[in-house]
């Protein structure tokens, strides 16, 4: 019975793995197929011909390298600022009782519930006045603002999972509040930092609508915008180039998931779920 269950579970897991990995496989193989092999019936499940031309095209004509660096910079800066601010903010909300605490917590969470599209025009007009249109720093400000509520909420969950006795002991041993935060709380919340960083990073990495409205020139384009720009009306969809650009765009997600797997599991099984 147990063996049969194991077989069923393994089969289901195999099916799910196939289901989730196939689009990635198809993107990768499409990116190295010549144009004539991409739309073919029956499809070429294994690429019979091989070419780098799609990559050459997106790097030389569409400047995907520069766009990648823009996205990397914006997403990294957004993540760094958000994590620094919210690791502190979440700690404050979680560990301290102060007047208006609940009001601020709910206010922060309510901000998260406002659909981002509603904010586009106000952002546009404000940034126009502030000279922040068509700047990567403007995008970082917007992304940080959008990410802070979720990140604070996550950090509150992570911190609240920590036993209060640990903090009490540190306090009795003479540790200051900042010392407790830096020496006790932060090391314990590393899985939470990793999970929050990944969520914030990927949020900024994949964002489209705001970057479309708030940036103009080629040298400020981010990846979702640049990939979207590959599609034209009344022209065959350049599936090879899109797959090549998509493969490049997948790199951070792959690197992050491979290098931080341990923390992700810890993080998701800790405060993130229970928060």
């Amino acid at each position, binding site marked *: 019975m147990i063996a049969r269950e194991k077989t069923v579970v393994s089969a289901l897991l195999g099916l799910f793995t196939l289901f989730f990995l196939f689009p990635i496989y198809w993107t990768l193989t499409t990116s190295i197929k010549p144009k004539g092999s991409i739309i073919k019936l029956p499809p070429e499940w294994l690429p019979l011909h091989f070419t780098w031309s799609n990559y050459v095209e997106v790097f030389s004509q569409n400047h995907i390298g520069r766009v990648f660096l823009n996205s990397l910079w914006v997403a990294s800066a957004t993540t760094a600022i958000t994590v*620094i601010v919210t690791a502190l903010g979440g700690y404050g909300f979680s560990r301290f009782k102060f007047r208006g605490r609940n009001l601020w917590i709910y206010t922060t969470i309510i901000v998260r519930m406002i659909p981002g599209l509603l904010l586009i025009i106000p952002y546009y007009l404000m940034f126009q006045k502030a000279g922040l249109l068509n700047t990567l720093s403007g995008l970082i400000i917007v992304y940080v603002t959008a990410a802070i509520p979720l990140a604070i909420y996550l950090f509150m969950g992570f911190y609240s999972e920590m036993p209060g006795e640990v903090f009490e002991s540190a306090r009795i041993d003479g540790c200051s509040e900042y010392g407790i935060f830096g020496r006790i709380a932060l090391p314990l919340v590393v899985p939470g930092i990793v999970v929050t960083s990944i969520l914030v990073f990927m949020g900024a990495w994949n964002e489209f609508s705001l970057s479309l409205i708030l940036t*103009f020139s080629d040298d400020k384009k981010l990846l979702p915008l640049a990939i979207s720009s590959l599609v034209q009306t009344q022209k065959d969809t350049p599936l090879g180039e899109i797959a090549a650009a998509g493969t490049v765009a997948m790199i951070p997600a792959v690197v992050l998931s491979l290098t931080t797997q341990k923390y992700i599991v810890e993080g998701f099984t800790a405060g993130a779920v229970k928060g």
Partner: protein
Amino acid sequence: MLNANKGSVRAALGLTFAISLVLAGCSGNDNGGNSTTSADASASPTADAGSAVKVEGPTVYGIKLQDMDAGGTLKGQYKGKKIVVATMAGDTEKALKDAATYFEQASGATVEVQSFPAQSYMEKIQLDLQTNHSFDSIVMPVALIHGYAEGGLVQDLKPYIDNKELVSPTLSLDDFIPSLLDIYGNYKSKLVAFPYKPDAQIFFYRKDLFEDPKMKESFKAKTGHELVVPQTPEQMAEAAAFFTKSLNPDSPVTYGYSTMADNTSSRWIWTNRLAAFGGRDVDKDFKPAFNNEAGLKALEFAKDLTRYAPKELLTLGWDEANTLFANGEVAMMEQWPGLIQTVEADGSKVKGKVGYGVTPGGAPTMGGWSIAMTASTDNPELTYKFLEYVTSKDLEVLKIQDKMDPTRTSNYMRPELQQQFPMYQTLLDSLTKGKIMADPDVPFISPKLNDIMESAVQSVLRGELEPQKALDIMDKSFTEEIKGAGIAGE
């Protein structure tokens, strides 16, 4: 306690430093939509600003481009100035950038081409036109340009053309295909744009089948008529029936007719015949002009064509419809000129087997893009010169490399181009005969009217609505929308 204070100060300083480093680091070269770009010129000017500038023109399709300084009117006199041109990302963007390289050398000015994705460039450009005013010129579909003209967002070019000091001696407005200059450029007695990218529905057919003696013989036996490339709707329907396998098992292809007819493009099956039968979408006073015999006949014909088309016709977009044709499953197809690139590509089963002509009925639906000058530009003369430059006879040849067909008759007459682009004669004929635009030329509400047409035409093609009932619904909705928008004719 002291340590704790020091720690807190360090933490605060560290945080401040990190944030300022990030913001400072990423704000380099940021200047709110006005950053400068330097073109990588492939040829360099041979004189400084103020004196004559010699810009070496490239040789394109065997044609040595001569007029690279707008008839001698560009002498580097705009040095230090800059304009921003906005358009959709892709071929239009590339064509503008290619021309801008030479314009920068000749004028001394800097041109920044800003492009936005196909799905959202309209919203983005309109938002900027109404608020930020960072664009000097826009290249967009004709109906949108006319909407901006109605709203005062783009300006009349006539005063610049009338300025003898400014205008190029090689401008030659008469050289533009007359229907293009009229439909694309003119709006309420003003010339609000120059034609930039022409477009017309083309009739593609399987030349190998129509020229096959066996097919001709079989067609004659079945119909009593000669198999000819259809020029009338009746000929088209007869040929479509003959080549539809479900109606004629001997047909070498599955479908007699196809096109893209998803819910953004099905209306063109109707409009391709509407003008042919004497109707229009709207008249000069923005009143519906299709709820008549011509409209009914055209819609009934469109419904009739679905009998010879794939069952999934109403889901076919650009890629799907073209793939069906390129896979050799369809005998005839109405499509925009870009289909030729698909059918002549490696891997196409119909490569070298496709002919083209004006859509049966002789009044194809027209698309097209124009280039206009915004009302808010700070550099109107420079912007005008750019418009004039990129639409000039020689520079039009340059943009053919980026799949932008010419808008000037003289370019269609060049033997070099006729030889390399055999479809050009058909395109010229189609552009000359076209009367109805792909998007109704009604300011502000053109997309809404598209939706109304699509909904009604799709209902008819799906068999859910009788053609006359659909026309009544369209008529009523058009009238309400146009009245609601407060738009009046000249």
